[in-house]
């Protein structure tokens, strides 16, 4: 949970050592500066005054540096060298002056270049910072068939740029925060001023402001700090690496969060069903989109239920299996020396191993790994009498279904839920499964995301939102935004205009 910041640490001692001689400054840095090895300290004499230029060379852009050193050195001899004059002469408008050591320290490590004219009361600072970033690339974890494939990169500037071009609106707000006491990072919340619910924005703002941590490792970590409850399995905010997914959510009234240096973003509030949505559904025809959405939903249920049901049927309620199937299941079970629960756990464990190994290895090796693991180990396990071949099919189907969730985090949750259910099924049979399911339903009912119910639009029931969540209808029917997120402005376009029909032969 997010803890309250005790008190602002503003009363740090501010030391002002200026004015002083350039040599004294150099000496000062040598003695007091933790990373003086990195510091480049160059001294020039311009118009009979000593001038020092200092910076950390790997944080700045070299060619920009040249562009101020040159005019500095070739300064018109008639000009009196003062801070004020220099600011006017140099071809960059971003220069500022500063006079505390602390400020200089902070700015040095984010790539400023400082110019100090001997015996002046302040130092001139130019932001020439250079960030090494990856250029925008194709999405890796959330791969799409249709739609824009651009993914977020590690630079928040690039990310904001991408989003701005996706939503070219004056309504779009990037609110800036800094999180982390020891190693601060820039955090931005993204929302549409005229659409997003103000309470939600305030809640998010408050949670970020009140967060008191030394540092955050990235968006996903920040997300965990900000979530309503950290004690449970389900992710409560929807993470994505796709700008168009973020843009879609933001234009529908959700709030996005970006963190500098992290190639993912997350949106809030989320619901259980928003994890099963993919922007691809929008690009498909509405029939296909609906089909895929329902398919994913069924796949989730199927993936959770199928292995436990096998275990329950093979351990307790044999009578629910149809007679013909019973013979084949029974015969393949007969060779297995373990009880069904152990057999199922073993095989699920194997599949999880394969999946995890595949994810850690480079792509090409990973694929081979999966095939080799699936075919060879599966075959061998059956022949060795470790598992029954029916179970291999069951487990493989369940694994396959769990891959269909667009959100990787949510997919992991589904993977995890299966295990307690298998154990319950092994202990109590069908009763165990139903118990587990009831527990899950109650659990999900109790969850909130940013204070909003997690199971909306089922509970609280909002029938009007069903066509945005469970299936899709043609766009002319979707004239309103989902009421579930309580947007300020519900209407997307005028329904009348969309419904207007021309007569035949007109």
């Amino acid at each position, binding site marked *: 949970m997010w803890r309250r910041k005790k008190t602002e640490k503003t009363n740090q001692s501010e030391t002002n050592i200026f004015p002083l001689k350039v040599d004294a400054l150099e000496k000062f840095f040598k003695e007091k500066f933790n990373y003086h090895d990195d510091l480049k300290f160059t001294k020039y004499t311009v118009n009979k005054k000593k001038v020092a230029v200092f910076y950390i060379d790997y944080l700045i852009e070299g060619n920009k540096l040249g562009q101020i050193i040159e005019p500095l050195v070739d300064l018109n001899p008639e000009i009196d060298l003062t801070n004020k004059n220099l600011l006017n002469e140099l071809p960059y408008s971003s220069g500022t002056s500063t006079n505390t050591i602390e400020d200089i320290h902070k700015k040095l490590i984010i790539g400023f270049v400082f110019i100090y004219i001997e015996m002046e009361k302040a130092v001139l600072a130019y932001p020439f910072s250079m960030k090494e970033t990856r250029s925008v690339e194709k999405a890796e974890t959330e791969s799409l068939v249709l739609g824009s494939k651009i993914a977020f990169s590690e630079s928040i500037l690039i990310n904001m740029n991408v989003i701005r071009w996706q939503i070219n609106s004056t309504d779009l707000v990037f609110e800036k925060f800094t999180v982390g006491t020891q190693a601060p990072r820039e955090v931005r919340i993204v929302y549409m001023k005229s659409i997003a619910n103000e309470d939600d924005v305030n809640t998010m703002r408050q949670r970020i402001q009140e967060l008191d941590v030394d540092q955050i490792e990235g968006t996903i970590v920040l997300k965990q700090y900000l979530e309503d409850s950290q*004690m449970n399995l389900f992710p409560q905010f929807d993470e994505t690496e796709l700008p168009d997914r973020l843009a879609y959510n933001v234009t529908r009234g959700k709030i996005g969060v970006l963190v500098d240096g992290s190639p993912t973003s997350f949106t809030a509030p989320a619901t259980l069903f928003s994890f099963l949505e993919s922007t691809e559904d929008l690009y498909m025809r509405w029939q296909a989109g609906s089909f895929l959405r329902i398919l994913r939903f069924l796949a989730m249920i199927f993936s959770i239920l199928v292995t436990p049901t096998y275990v329950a*049927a*093979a*351990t*307790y*309620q*044999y*009578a629910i299996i149809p*007679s013909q199937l*019973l*013979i084949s*299941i*029974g*015969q393949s*079970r*007969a*060779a*297995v020396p373990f*009880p*069904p629960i152990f057999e199922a756990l073993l095989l699920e464990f194997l599949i999880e191993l394969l999946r995890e190994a595949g994810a850690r290895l480079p792509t090409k090796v990973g694929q081979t790994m999966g095939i080799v693991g699936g075919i060879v180990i599966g075959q061998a396990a059956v022949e060795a*009498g470790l598992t029954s071949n029916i179970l291999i099919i069951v487990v493989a189907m369940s694994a396959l279904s769990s891959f269909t969730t667009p959100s990787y985090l949510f997919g992991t949750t589904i993977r995890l839920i299966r295990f307690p259910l298998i*154990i*319950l099924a092994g*202990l*109590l*049979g069908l009763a165990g499964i139903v118990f587990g399911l009831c527990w899950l339903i109650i659990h999900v009912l109790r969850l909130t995301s940013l204070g909003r119910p997690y199971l909306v639009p089922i509970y609280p029931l909002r029938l009007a939102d069903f066509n945005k969540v469970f299936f899709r209808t043609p766009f002319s029917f979707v004239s309103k935004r989902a009421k579930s997120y309580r947007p300020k402005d519900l209407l997307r376009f005028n329904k009348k205009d969309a419904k207007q029909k021309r007569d035949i032969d007109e």
Partner: protein
Amino acid sequence: MRKITLMILSMILFLSSCVQTFQLEDLGIITSRGVDRADNNDIEITMSVLQFQANSTKPTIIVSGVGSTIKGAVEDAGKKVSQELVPGKLELEMYSRELAEDGLKSYIDTLKRDANIPDTVRLAVTEDNSREILHTQEEHISTNVGEFLHGLVQPGAEQRLFPEVSLQKFARIINDEGIDPILPIIGLREETPVITGIALFKDDKMKGQLPIKDEYYFTIIEGLTQEELIEIEIPTDSVEKYLIHGNGGEEQLKIVLLIEKGTGDIQLTDKDKLHFDTNIKIELSLLEISREYKLDDAKALKKLEQEIEKVITSRYEEIFSYLKEVNTDVFGYGEKYRIKKKGGKLSDKEWDKSFPTIHSNFNVNVNIIRHGTVNR
């Protein structure tokens, strides 16, 4: 939250020792069983049991046991196999004729009382004893005995459709007033089990039997007939003028027909004298005829239909008088009487007395709606 998680964990530890497991490979799953009378008033039970062994080609075994009750006999049989015998997938239960004649009520009660036994169990009576039928050698039939027998009595599985007799239906009919149940009779022909007849019950006691070829007379009245073959012989003389090549010296014209749709309807016409009308409507399609016949002639077709009607009506009347003779009302005349009676109540005893005195007209209406690709 954490408390509850702890609770669950501790529960699970307790639970693992509490519930009796039925692991598939440790079970002998009874699919069919036959009940016979043994010495000393005991019951002998013979069961076809599914059991699972790795690399075994034969999934079923036949086990038998003796005891004074059904459960006792199953218990006794259970000692002879390594698996636990469970009835959850029971599909067929057969009773020897001897038992059926003494009454099946107590056996039906056992079946109904146990919540594990499905209500879809089919019931049957065996000609002699069920032991022999379950011990049929598997080379005579393509699959195992249990499945074969179940296929025999299950509607839709074979060409021959017997009126469906599941446990639920049988139990309902023996309790209903004014209607009596029937069951199929299974017997051995050339060492292969076949349905040989229809057992007629008075409540839970078997009273008489009819040959299986009369089976459609029952299904039509139930209104269940579909796609069923019948063979009918009519005297050649009556239709001679429509035969293209004359009668050819044959006395009987043999016709094979397919019942497309058959419906029956019983109406009470006189409440005091207990007169009934039994209206039968059958739609047929002609499949085979032993002589060439002028089927394109409307009159000829009409004549043929009339002759078929005559044959069916007379057989219905024969069956009806036999039913009165053994006093079992399997067509449910009593039920039709009951619903017209004031108060809607009719005791079995009352109907027992009046059933032999009732009278019924059989109005059979036959339509040949198709006669194949040729019209002669």
